């Protein structure tokens, strides 16, 4: 369990130590991110200290402070929040430790950034719905945990598209807190109050999309509603493949993870690196789902 011992072993060449603070390891996407980083680190001979902030920006700041106190060589930060995680970045930079943000951004500029913009995910999903509805119809949106960066940005991206499509009406917006069971309950209640008036549903992540999907199927209304999620978790990909879910948006967590470790090492070895490496989101539908299913 306790991986290795200290990074500063007397014998041999000293291995670089990278401190990693992750948003939340009980999130499937983050778990994938973690896995790819650990694989990459092993391959490159780097020691990783992985801390889980469990969605708390304060904890994340604490963890970076601990990394600074431990004098790690570099830090990879998977920020909880745009603003609230910024002090973590500033503290690392002030201590002269390079910091790479992965997956999402902070207000304070890190040494390098690897990831994507959640707004894009919201935009892609909503554009897909707009296209399927020919720009006309009633849409319901399931929000993530209110106030979290991913929720705010995916919300924004989706609303930008809606603003451009006056024929599309947002008739219901509620949070299901990223949770499948809550999404199912919410969809059941929407089925009751809106009945056949909902033409499309955008769930801000796939967990909620799966919940909504089950509720719609049980109400035998799935054929009348277009449903899209974000993240491309295996369940959702399978559902897209089976023709149950209409679309999801793929976020390349594996690519982000290994790129983050690689970038951090480049910085340490004073090699040239990209200050901002955007790994784009991709729309997944039945047409292209095969390439995402492993």
């Amino acid at each position, binding site marked *: 369990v306790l991986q290795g011992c200290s990074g500063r072993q007397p014998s041999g060449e000293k291995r670089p130590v990278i401190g990693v603070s992750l948003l939340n*390891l*009980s*999130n*499937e996407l983050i*778990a994938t991110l973690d896995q790819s980083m650990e694989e990459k680190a092993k391959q490159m001979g780097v020691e990783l200290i992985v801390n889980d902030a469990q969605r708390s920006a304060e904890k994340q700041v604490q963890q970076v402070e601990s990394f600074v106190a431990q004098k790690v060589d570099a830090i990879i930060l998977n920020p909880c929040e745009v603003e609230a995680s910024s002090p973590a970045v500033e503290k690392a930079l002030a201590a002269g430790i390079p910091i790479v943000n992965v997956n999402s951004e902070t207000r304070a500029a890190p040494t390098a950034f690897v990831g994507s913009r959640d707004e894009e995910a919201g935009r892609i999903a909503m554009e897909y719905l707009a296209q399927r509805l020919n720009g006309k119809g009633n849409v319901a949106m399931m*929000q993530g945990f*209110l106030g979290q960066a991913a929720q705010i940005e995916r919300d924004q991206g989706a609303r930008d598209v809606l603003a451009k499509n006056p024929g599309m009406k947002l008739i*219901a*917006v*509620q*949070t299901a807190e990223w*949770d*499948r*069971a809550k999404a*199912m*309950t*919410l969809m*059941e*209640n*929407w089925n*009751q*109050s809106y*009945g056949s008036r909902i033409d499309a549903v955008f769930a801000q992540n796939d*967990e909620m999309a*799966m*919940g909504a999907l*089950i509720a719609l199927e*049980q109400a035998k209304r799935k054929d009348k509603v277009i449903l899209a999620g974000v993240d491309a*978790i*295996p*369940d959702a990909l*399978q559902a897209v493949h089976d023709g149950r879910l209409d679309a999801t948006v793929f976020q390349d967590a594996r690519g982000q993870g290994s790129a983050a470790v690689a970038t951090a090492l480049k910085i340490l070895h004073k090699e040239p690196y990209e200050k901002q490496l955007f790994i784009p989101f991709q729309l997944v539908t039945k047409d292209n789902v095969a390439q995402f299913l492993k």
Partner: protein
Amino acid sequence: MEKPKIKSWPASLGLPVALAVLVAALSLARPNFLNLANLVNLVRQISINGILAVGVTYVLLTGGVDLSLGSVVALSGVAAACFAHPGQYPAIVPVAIGILAGAACGAANGLVVARGKVAPFIVTLGMMTAARGLALLVSGGRPVSNLAPGFTHIGSGNIAGVPEPILIFFFVALLSRVLLTNMRFGRYVYAVGGNENAALASGVPVRSVKMAAYTLCGALAGLAGVVLASRITTGQPNAGIGYELDAIAAVVIGGTSLNGGVGGVDGTILGALLMGVINNGLDLLNVSSYYQQVVKGLIIVGAVWLDRSKDR
């Protein structure tokens, strides 16, 4: 004056009245609230919280508390799901495993509470963290999906037109009601919660009663985990967060005292119903999420306040 200042709130008429008022208001605002479909919907939605709440009623009656419910739901859901892939075992196997996993967690809680005399708050808080960790370990942090239809049927199927989760909830509630009001064990539960020293001096096997209460509560949390996993067709390691507070709230709204010894399953059912009506109603009214939270908080406190002021 022997009456303590914190009221005993026997299941009075206040809560049914508050519930009736709420239902009346909602059905005026939204005629489809009183649809049979929506009512079935509503009861199905509360069935998981209901099962948990009935379970934790035992623990609260003994004067304890169980904060580990939500995590136990996740752990047993994941454990069940691991054995519920198509073509593996008949559905009874994962169901039994889920319930057993929950019962094991509950028994561990009960052991430390009854033998170790550690405050139930701490014990079950520890279990809350530990069981969540175990759920993540067992599942590798990923949802366990691809479950056999025989298993997922539990959460989505009907028997004689009634959704199975509702039947399970009713069955659990009925059984618990009998256990608590007509059985020796029930008496002992009330005695332990009402005055532990007197129960001991009366020859009540206090430790075993506590063990049994926590184990039952855990087993029902396991059952709830199974129903949930089957309903959402996955074992989610991060399912059930905050469920313990919802369940305890339902019990306390229903008039069971956190100090133990007073209350029962009838109130718990009413409490769970009230919470379900609030959630369902606010969704139906499409109250904006932010206001929804404010309103929900106020209604819960208001309903209980009304209820309590009746018997003052």
